[in-house]
């Protein structure tokens, strides 16, 4: 336990960094992903084209490259100085924009599970596309995509460690810090794994309770 109790400062900062990255990246991904998912099924051809282009380019780019673009290419272009929140904001954007593609595809598959008749009936009573989506289709779609969506979020949680190489202190950087302080790296990595398992268990629990609450009587 000395590995943890002697280095509480680093563990705390690392855990906090991971949670902030996860929360920030998750919000960006869910909002952007839902919008893009809706765009991909919308009746407007331009919206469909933009959505498809975005998903197909970003989803096919390795996360590390997305990070490189945000951490090393964007700041010189914008003339940004890397003062306190800038690296964190860039990392949240990179994570969010990358994960949004997966969220979009997950939501689109959820939308496809809603029988066409539902949307047609909604359209027939005079609802607009936006109303059809928010009032009829999305509530049913979300319900069916909870398990895959949670998998995407769990992947996001673990992907936060990539930010360690790009100037955001998180659980992924703890190993480098403690190795310099003379701790055994393998022990440190095992503890990092334990923390991640605990966090993922929390997410699984959230998934189960959401599934139960929104369950449909069949």
């Amino acid at each position, binding site marked *: 336990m000395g590995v943890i109790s002697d280095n509480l400062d680093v563990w705390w900062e690392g855990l906090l960094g991971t949670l902030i990255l996860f929360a920030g990246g998750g919000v960006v991904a869910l909002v952007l992903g839902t919008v893009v998912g809706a765009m991909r099924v919308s009746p407007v051809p331009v919206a469909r084209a933009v959505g498809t282009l975005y998903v197909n380019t970003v989803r096919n780019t390795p996360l590390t490259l997305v990070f490189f673009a945000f951490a090393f290419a964007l700041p010189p272009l914008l003339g940004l100085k890397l003062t306190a929140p800038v690296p964190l904001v860039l990392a949240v954007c990179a994570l969010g924009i990358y994960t949004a593609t997966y969220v979009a595809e997950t939501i689109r598959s959820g939308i496809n599970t809603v029988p066409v008749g539902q949307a047609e009936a909604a359209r027939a009573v005079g609802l607009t596309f936006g109303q059809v989506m928010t009032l009829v289709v999305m509530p049913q779609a979300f319900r069916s995509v909870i398990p895959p969506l949670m998998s995407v979020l769990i992947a996001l949680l673990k992907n936060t460690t990539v930010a360690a190489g790009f100037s955001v202190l998180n659980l992924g950087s703890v190993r480098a810090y403690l190795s*310099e*302080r003379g701790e055994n*790296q393998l022990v440190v990595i095992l503890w990092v794994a334990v923390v991640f398992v605990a966090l993922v268990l929390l997410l699984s629990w959230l998934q189960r309770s959401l599934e139960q609450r929104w369950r449909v009587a069949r």
Partner: protein
Amino acid sequence: MRTPRLLAGLGLVAVAALGLTACNSGSPTDPGGAAGDDETTEALWEVETDVSLDDSPTYERMVERGGVVVGVKNDQPGLGVEDAVTGERSGFDVDIARWIAASLGFDEDQITYQTIPSANREQAIVNGDIDYYVGTYSITDSRKQQIDFAGPYFITGQGLLVAADDDSISGPDDLAGKVVCSVTGSTPLQRIRDEYAPGDTVENDTYSQCVEQLKQGQVDAITTDEAILAGYVALEPEALKIAGEPFSEERYGVGLPKGDTALKDHINALLDGGGDVWTALFEEHLAPAGIDGTQPETDD
């Protein structure tokens, strides 16, 4: 219809491949360049032929293998660099590693280099992946719990690298409101965060990324051992400079498996008795970067 086209395609590929290999065999190969390099170092020391090192498990392992595996760095100008094209290794640390190998009776062909990043050094030695490590490896008490050090063979200190036209930083106390860059989790970074008050810190995987950001103005300073910084100044003296004096003492040692006293004593005796070699290596690799240094006494 399909088969002939496929065959034609394969034929084209084959011709292209032949052409490439032909070019390859025609171009000048390694020996010329390598021989020139060997002459300079080989004059400094000879490969020992009659080595006896009792009670050294590491040496026994080397003899059994018929070669030595050395851990080094590959991205530190002047200290340990690997030419991306030729794979040639050079630098002060790398030559110290060669010198030690020669004293153990292994010539250049019997040395295998392994690039090990800072954070993995102890683990590589503990696991036995490498026989010894030479690469800006500071002797510290916490590391001594896992491994042993021979040396020190060089003493430097933490310094600051800034843009050549920046006069606002002359020491670690001028960092308020400034952005300081270093490698993730490195000791210099932890020291600057804990003991001084920089505006912000930026952490990258390598120093070269920090140097890039410094030149573009995204960070104000880079901090690590002065010997490492000096290598970057030597590469681009018109863009970079070292600010102020070193503010810590880093004693570079040779990392060895814990408990191998025989090998440690052998290397210490080699270093203590090889002042001329040391001076020649220093003059070749580090003096041009503009740092002073004298050979330190080794520890017991």
